[in-house]
């Protein structure tokens, strides 16, 4: 089992959700997060004075999937979230040791 975390542009969250649903993924967790990458944020001008916005708002989508579906899911997120411009985000893939469904107590792949 693998956990996929995708940090994406906030306005892409609906596209990514739709793409994941089409891939048969039934559940996901979404977080409002802030951060910056190589660009280190950007500068704005307010009343003639510059200021740096370094933590930009992003959405983090978390899904847990069977290991074999990772390439397909990553591909779908890539297609859905990409604009080709700076700040499109990143995808992280982790090993997932255990999953437990709280209601029934099911464990492992059963609980996905």
């Amino acid at each position, binding site marked *: 089992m693998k956990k996929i975390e995708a940090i994406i542009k906030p306005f892409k969250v609906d596209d990514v959700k739709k793409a994941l649903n089409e891939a048969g993924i039934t559940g996901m967790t979404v977080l409002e997060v802030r951060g910056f990458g190589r660009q280190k944020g950007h500068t*704005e*001008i*307010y*009343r*003639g*004075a*510059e*200021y740096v916005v370094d933590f930009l708002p992003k959405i983090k989508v978390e899904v847990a999937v069977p290991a074999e579906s990772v390439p397909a899911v990553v591909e779908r997120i890539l297609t859905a979230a990409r604009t080709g411009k700076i700040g499109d985000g990143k995808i992280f893939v982790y090993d997932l040791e255990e999953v437990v469904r709280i209601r029934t107590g099911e464990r492992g792949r059963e609980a996905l």
Partner: protein
Amino acid sequence: MKKPLRKIATTALCLLVLLVGLAAALPALADEAPKPDPSGANTGVINDIIGASAGAPTDNDIKTMSEKEPLAAKVGDVAGHNRISINIVWTLICGFLVMFMQAGFAMVETGFTRAKNAGHTMAMNFMIYGLGMLGYWICGFALQMGGVGGVATLGGAGVLNGEYVIHLFGKEFGLFGTKGFFLSGTTYDAAVFALFLFQMVFMDTTATIPTGSMAERWNFKSFVVYGFFVGGILYPLFANWVWGGGWLSTLGKNFGLGHGHVDFAGSSVVHMTGGVAALVGAWVLGPRLGKFNKDGSPNAIPGHHIPMAVVGTFILAFGWFGFNAGSSLSGTDLRIGVIATNTMLASAAGAFSSMMYMWIRYGKPDISMICNGMLAGLVAITAPCAFVTAPSAVLIGVIAGVLVCLSVFFVERTLKIDDPVGAFSVHGLNGAWGVIALGIFADGAYGDGWNGVSGTVKGLLYGDASQFAAQLVGTLTNLIYVGLVSLIFFVILKKVIGLRVPEEVEIEGLDQAEVAVTAYPDFNLRNLPKY
């Protein structure tokens, strides 16, 4: 509440109760003539139709007619009463509009400051209304208008007849009024009360300007003292000199300087006074933590709610119709059509020119500066609105919109004074520009007999350089008087009570510590019991 503070508060409250008691006892001490008219039934008589229109009866017509035709005389009385009624209704409704500008100020100032101080900024804008009003009721109104005599458009018996004058160079210099303390005694009069309401909301406009420049760091207890001071003393004295029959208004009569210092609705009296006090207050108070870097360069601190500030600007622009057109104190003076239209033209011009300036210089039309630009146009047209043509009104607004941008940068980058909402640039500088613009552009179509000088009001471009000189004298006087007195006041206040909140309160936000409520408590996670 700490013990000494409680003692001070209790003493202040006792003092207030004592003063009110004294005021209630005043009628017994008051002298008899002239007779006030509390019910208003006797206000507005046949003599009030003299000069009502181009073909109105003269004093002589009325004298000869009233013997021959007693019924016509009675009908004339009713006509006079109706005319005064229209004027008083107009003055009151415009006053109500100006009162609502307090909401506009509250929204502009709160929108341009940070969420963590929103409750505190709102609270200052809310309480200045009451604090200033009480100060104005105690002594402000009397000092300002207590010697004005009668206001012709509002009728009445002229009970405000106590200007204190000194004699210099063989001329009279009116300094302050002496009738109308607590609105009691002979000033218990319908026309005087209407005048009080209108003048009070103007004073409150001045009073609320420094709450913007001093926002996000000013402690509430020294603010309360300031509220009484500005309403009771600071504003009324200058207002007396211009509007209450004081020495600036008689510069024309005494020294041949045009019609004296002319300020139709208060570019200098209201806005420059507030703006200069705002600049001095912000200077004595010091900048917000983190506003300036070690090398003196400024950091932007964006406001938290720009839509709120934009709505506030619209409310102010709406209230301004009352501010300017109401200053005729007359719904039967049809110049109000010109006044109201000039007002809106200048506001549009100010918004437009500030938009273009920011767009060209910084690449984007910054809406926060455009709001300031619209207000700058309104401030600048406030003095000349009754005296200029439409093209002049637009030009005055265009210049105001650029001035406000330049001034915001000058205050921040050169003076190194932190004025979060641009209060000085909008009200102070453009207040000065407004009265000077009157001295340049007044076209001589209006203002016959203004301040007791015959002929209409003409500016530099229309052949009266002395009017321009009078405007300069008024502007300089405002700068020196308001600058000096508010400097002394704020420095003393800083020594005695202290002006600033503690550093940790400023970092945390002033809401909880200063006014007990957080504007947006839902930012914090909290847990309510479920039963």
